[in-house]
């Protein structure tokens, strides 16, 4: 279909582990291990998972900020992994990223006008006075005052810096934006401002987001579809409402039940997982989740489950979905 703007096919990103005297490759950290999904135009896909599950690595790999190990990513008709450097540079205008840490992702030596204007000029969209106007327009759209363009990043608060990061990403009129934990370093009262801003801008510019976060309640709010990652793999992906109302993978169930709910009257039937997330350098055999799973059977310890559609666009990778 034509409204698919991003399509991932079996994307893999392995980091080599070196050791010994000659620093030979002695193993791989399988940060992203065979991820496939599609995102439709104008939609938001929420990507959730705990730290180390590979969600940020995936976000960066999609934009080829990290060299992929295998697989392919299609943006409309372009295969991102196969395009030449020159062409990719042009393509990047359409593919932008909002970073997690608003403190380290802005160059402290450039003023805001330069930070936002740099990419506008680089991509030949405008220069001189026109560029200036575009910068001021973007600042205003993102809730900053246009005369702030002469200021430097250190003069702004965390929330304002994140707005600058968003203004920079959107100044090129991209179609697809990867937002890598854009709110996790902000205070609660500011988080809502930034999420609302992202939603308003999505409506105004028809953006498509990949929203990476570990905050499950915020993801529920902003996303249309949600993918849950565990140890480099997507274990469940479906419509937002379906995922939160009817989670099928035992990991998703545990993850959702672990989120504290602000209601003293509610008795939570929390599923407490034992143990920690295993190291992605040495993932368990069979299903990745089997050492922590409440339902694991012999089959789970040997055979790796595939992500399969069980109807109504709900995909889950668990052998025992039908049984439970």
């Amino acid at each position: 279909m034509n409204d698919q703007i991003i399509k991932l096919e079996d994307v893999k990103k392995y980091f080599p582990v070196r050791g010994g005297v000659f620093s030979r490759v002695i193993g791989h950290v399988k940060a992203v291990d065979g991820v496939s999904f599609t995102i439709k135009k104008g939609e938001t896909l929420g990507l959730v998972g705990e730290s180390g599950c590979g969600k940020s690595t995936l976000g960066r790999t999609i934009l080829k900020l990290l060299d992929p190990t295998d697989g392919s990513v299609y943006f409309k008709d372009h295969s991102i992994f196969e395009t030449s450097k020159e062409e990719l540079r042009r393509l990047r205008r359409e593919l932008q990223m909002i970073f997690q840490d608003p403190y380290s992702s802005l160059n402290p030596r450039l003023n805001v006008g330069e930070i936002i204007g740099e990419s506008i000029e680089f991509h030949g969209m405008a220069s001189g006075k026109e560029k200036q106007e575009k910068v001021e327009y973007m600042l205003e759209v993102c809730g900053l005052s246009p005369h702030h363009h002469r200021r430097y990043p250190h003069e702004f608060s965390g929330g304002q810096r994140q707005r600058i990061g968003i203004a920079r990403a959107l100044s090129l009129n991209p179609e697809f934006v990867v937002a890598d934990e854009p709110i996790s370093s902000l205070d609660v009262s500011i988080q809502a401002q930034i999420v609302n801003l992202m939603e308003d801008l999505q409506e105004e510019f028809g953006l498509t987001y990949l929203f990476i976060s570990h905050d499950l309640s915020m993801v529920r709010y902003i996303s249309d579809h949600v993918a849950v990652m565990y140890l480099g793999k997507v274990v469940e992906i479906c419509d937002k409402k379906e995922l939160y109302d009817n989670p099928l993978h035992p990991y998703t169930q545990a993850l959702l039940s672990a989120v504290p709910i602000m209601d003293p009257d509610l008795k939570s039937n929390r599923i407490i997982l034992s143990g920690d997330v295993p190291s992605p350098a040495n993932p368990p055999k069979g299903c990745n989740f089997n050492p922590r799973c409440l339902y694991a059977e012999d089959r789970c310890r040997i055979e790796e489950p595939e992500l399969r559609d069980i109807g109504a666009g709900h995909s889950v990778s668990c052998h025992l979905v039908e049984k439970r």
Partner: protein
Amino acid sequence: MSDLLQVKNLNTSFHTEDGVVRAVNDVSFNLKHGDAMGIVGESGCGKSVACLSIMRLINHPGKVEADKITLEEKDLLKLNEKQMRKIRGNEMAFIFQEPMTSLNPVYTIGFQLQEAIRLHQGLGKRESWQKSIDMLKMVGIPSAENIAEEYPHCLSGGMKQRAMIAMALSCEPKILFADEPTTALDVTIQAQILQLMRDLKERINTAIVFISHDLGVISEMVDRVIVMYCGRIIEESDTRSIIKEPKHPYTIGLINSKPQINEEINKLIPISGSVPNPLQVPPGCPYNPRCEHAMEIEVSRGHYVNCWLYSKKGGQVRQ
């Protein structure tokens, strides 16, 4: 029962080159044996500094002043540093936010645990080592004998936080300050740690002061909540009524700006603006630039009700 901890008009200020930062302003609260109290607020609201001030862990250029800080009968303001050391870690313990940086990387877990036990309880080498291993077992660390000989970098974040809790509880303190103990952890690990803390609290009847910015965690852990903003207590009540019937516009804003996982909402209602620079706290109510109900009232110092909306004067103006 008499109060375990009484704090009256605690003021902590930092004298910096740029001016005086009043991190904590007239904070008062009482704590009974076995209480669980929460302090909620955003970063920079003074919630951690207030607790560090009580433990007297504030260094130069910080200055702690208070009318009264008593632990049972002891006046903590009159103790010298040596006497204070006997209390810290023994009668009052602190769990820090980041388990990654609050353990000493060059000593084994067991060594760091037994250090406090030997110091405060006067046990011998062997007994204190044994007690450290028992503590590690109590907080649910598997094969505690081996872990005790490991260095902190060998442990995951959740395990380190368990070790920190074991250390804090090793002398069975009367008060445990837990400063965002689960913020740096993943949700599934957070659930484990919160469960553990609840169990341990029942077992050794320690009073807990639980500092967090997450009202969800707070509502699970404590009976009473203090909400802080700009170093001041702006609302205080039992957990239920804070969450069900918040009164202060800031508390209401804080609750509204966070979506809940069990409900579908159409639009978030954020608090506008941001926390003021602590060097330039606005006059009057510190929340007034962000408050939608803000009124023009000549503010006198020392008002007790922290929002004019609920005072007689405010009510008249509103009408």
